[in-house]
């Protein structure tokens, strides 16, 4: 599973792409992925909302995740 990180999410994780391999078989939904990110990178807990896209489509927490899915984490950005 490939997770692309945008905006502040990239700054929190420290890179623009996170590869999650076999050991993360419990990541079955977008909601579970969000909880995993908050556990592993506590700064995600400070974000009141961020959008998640699965295979280029906006996804709510109940959307299931598959091993070959491409996921994007998209926090709001404000700069202008």
């Amino acid at each position, binding site marked *: 599973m490939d997770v*692309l990180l*945008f*905006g*502040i999410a*990239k*700054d929190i994780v420290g890179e*623009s792409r996170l590869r999650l391999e076999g050991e993360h078989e419990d990541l079955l939904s977008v909601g579970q992925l969000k909880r995993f990110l908050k556990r592993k990178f*506590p*700064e995600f807990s*400070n*974000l*009141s*909302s961020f*959008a998640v*896209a699965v295979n*280029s*489509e*906006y996804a709510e927490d109940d959307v299931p995740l598959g091993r070959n899915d491409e996921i*994007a984490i*998209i*926090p*709001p*950005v*404000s*700069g*202008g």
Partner: protein
Amino acid sequence: MNSTRYSRQTILKDFGPVGQEKLARAKVLVVGAGGLGVPVMTYLNAMGVGTLGLVDNDIVSASNLHRQVLYGESDIGKSKVAVAIEKLNAQNSETLLTGYPTFLTTENALEIIREYDMVVDASDNFPTRYLINDACVILKKPFVYGALHGFEGQVSVFNFQQGPTYRCLFKNMPRPAEIPSCEENGVLGIIPGIVGNFQAMETIKVITGIGEVLSGKLLLYNGLDQSLTKIKFSRLNKNLDIEALKSTYDFDCQVPVSAIGAPEFELLHSSEDVVCIDVRTRSEFNAFHLPKTVNIPLAEMETRINEISANGPVYVICQSGVRSHQAVATLRELQPKTTFINVKGGINNLNAYATKY
């Protein structure tokens, strides 16, 4: 001016004199005359958009010049709107230009936006973005969104022909301190130029009907690898049901806290031993910090509170004073016996910082 002025675009088969006529009749409001607003208004003006409104209450400062390329050294200290109108008028005297040297507020937003066909959100803060969204939904006007972070940008067209809105993508406004601004995080000069040009392109498409408007799609641009990613999203009907603006769009955590001005703090800091916590991230701290300050990033505050021990007051500082304000509000709940004082205006307003940057 003569008919050759727009000939290079009117000979385009899919644009033609009809497209040009639509531009001439269009009324576009650009909110923000900064990094994004400059390319947006420059191109819309050059291409022949008939009526342009500009909203901004800022003055030109030296740190704007690397990305706000309409302004020059001699403009420093002048009103952005006034300078922009003068230069845009020299660029195209046929455009009807109106300046609003004010910030967009709950009092003036509906009144100003009502006069225009559409809005370009070239602002630089969340309260203005949510205000533009809600006002445009109420008035049923489309708006072209653009925003940036570091080397990246986002572009979309919201509220276009009953399409999704900003709130369908990001339901609630982030709290202060969650997302750093350009001021805190930095921005490469050309990024707003690129993102603003994407916004200008979408504006032209909305006006003339050519191509496929970026509605229901968020464009993500990354300058470092020149990648463009499009994300599809849908309308949530309840977000179109807005009937009135909220009473305030200010960040909701503005509880009053004890505070000292940055220059006064700087004086105090240089003359006696004060305890000061810097709540910015480690990388910001490493790039610049005052001597004798301790770095406890805001995100780690609750777990590291026991590291703070002082007999006197504890001063709290960040880049602009927003995160430190929030930290003081949190800290005095967690440790009520200590006096915490916010350094208002933060590091941006210290002489030691200003002379260096």
